[in-house]
């Protein structure tokens, strides 16, 4: 085998995406959960870049770049929110943040 089929990259992306979802579902720490989302975004980026390769165009790269920017922006805001939560409640336990319900 001289080269890896592109599909493998996409499959890897899918797997990473699923792992990210799993992290969101099973982690209890807000920051970890947030990191799972970052993982999902990374997986998506891999897809973009892989598709870019197939299409032989770099629009996908641009998209990936924007995703990074957005991820960075989200990180800033998200971590600020987490910070505020922690100040309020003294915990990062996601299950504790459930006073609004029903």
């Amino acid at each position, binding site marked *: 085998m001289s080269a890896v089929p592109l599909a493998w990259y996409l499959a890897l992306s899918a797997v990473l995406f699923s792992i990210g*979802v799993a992290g*969101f*579902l099973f982690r209890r720490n807000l920051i970890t*959960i947030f990191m799972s989302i970052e993982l999902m975004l990374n997986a998506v980026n891999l897809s973009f870049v892989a598709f870019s390769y197939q299409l032989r165009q770099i629009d996908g790269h641009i998209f990936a770049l924007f995703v990074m920017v957005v991820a960075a922006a989200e990180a800033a805001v998200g971590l600020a929110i987490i910070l505020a939560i922690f100040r309020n409640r003294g915990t990062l336990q*996601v*299950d504790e*943040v*459930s006073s609004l*319900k*029903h």
Partner: protein
Amino acid sequence: MTMQHLWLIPALPLAGFLILGAVGRRLPKAVINAVAIGSVLLSFLWVLKILAALAPLEAVHAERYFTWVASGSLDVGFELAVDRLSAVMLLVVTGVGFLIHIYAAGYMAHEGGYYRFFSYMNLFMFFMLVLVLANNFLLLFVGWEGVGLCSYLLIGFYFLRRSATTAGNKAFIVNRIGDFGFSLAIFLIFITFGTLDFAKVFAGAASMPVEHSAGILTAISLLLFVGATGKSAQVPLYVWLPDAMEGPTPVSALIHAATMVTAGVYMVARSAALFIQAPLAMDVVAVVGLVTAVLAATIGLTQYDIKKVFAYSTVSQLGYMFLALGVGAFSAGVYHIVTHAFFKALLFLGAGSVIHALSGEQDLRNMGGLRKKTPVTFVTLMCAAVAIAGVPPFSGFHSKDEILLAAHQAAPWMFWVGVVTASMTAFYVFRAIFLTFFGKYRGTAHAHESPAVMTVPLALLALLSLGGGYFRVPAFLEPLYPGAAVEHDMALVAISVAAGLVGIGLAFLFYVARPGLPEALAQRLGAVYRLVYNKYLVDELYAATIIRPTVEGSRHVLWRGMDVAVIDGLVNGIGSWARGVGGVLRLVQSGNIRSYAAWILLGSVLVLAAIGLAGGGQ
């Protein structure tokens, strides 16, 4: 044909009613009397004037005033008419009505609601006259229902007394059951003949073949007769009439003896053209009439309330009239209406006089020996008694004779039953007379003779009772009911007269000669006596089989069961089910972020699967 202004006949009492109803409360008694009695008198005089003008009244004289109800092919006019039959009825109604109005002025003198009483009475006259004058079935129905209303109002005149108001309700509702039949008959008549006008309907009926087996005319006739059984208190709807005695006695005389209750007879006589074509229906009429006559007479034998006795007597006599109609002797039936109006009105008015004399006492067991204290009443009542007992040559003899002879012609067994009934009639009437006027006074009240305003009408009615038989009604009605004349078989006449006399004699034996005998006989008869005394328990039977199940069923099954439990339960159930679903959905909103993510994931997977698999299938 010149306008005779027939409408004035009912309109006069109507005006009286309106005046009394609107301002009667503020009027002095004299004015009330003038209005009430005057309007009836004027009406009576107007009847005389019209009859004089129209004499000999060989054809129908009809007048149409305006269209009442018109829709599609239906066109019912406000249309009055007078022919010989209605002429007879008009005279009886206005004449006897007038006398009773006078009497009532005395009888009611000390009662509260004087104006109210007379306004009702005038209203009754209005409706009764509309009934008699109506020229189509629907207008007849107007009068029919209207007199029922007045009957309701007057029975319940003493509205503080629960028994009175209950009796009024009973009268109205039982009559409604009859009217149910009547109205169905009207529907059928319109369907069959396309009109409700008497002339056209009867002409149409006459053109149809006689129905030897059941057919449309039989159905119509029977339904009409259902109406008649209600109004004229026949089996099985007679139960209201005895209770109707809760009303003031003049009411009993006017409405429940002389006029209203004969409306059924009048109606059947009026519809003779229909009945003649339906022999089956005629048989039913005759049999029901006979059964009623016997049944009511037997009950009458045992009653102690003087008005109840006469009430059952009325039922019985009405049965007689239907017997006449049923055997085709229409003119005899109408004849009996007339004579019965005289003597039965008299009986009631006399009874009223007695009650008046005894300050309201109605129980025969608390009377006795009033012969001396109320001589006029006694004499007039005796006149009535002999008339009803069929003693020749008084009025009752003539009409009853006609009926019995016609019955014999139709079926001899009917004659014999009729004779026995006649005997019973004589017995219970004289029983009442003897218990009231003979023997020792058993009551406590101070008895006194009634004032002239009451006794004069009594006297006039007494004359009519004695001599009323000489108004040859059958002959007068001959053009309307041709070929109805019967042969006078002297033997049969003698038998019927003898039966009456036997009745009188037995009454004398039981209640004057051997006062202990009734008690002993009652003892001997035991259960049978109690059954008869309790009116065959018919009221109780109706209550147990119809009224109670209906009411309780409505309450428990329909209202609480169907409405509240089932329908509302279903509706509210849907509501609480929806809220329950909402509650579950809210529980899903646990507030936990990871749970929400799981739901999102679930949704995504479902969407992916749905679209993906759909796409894969393409």
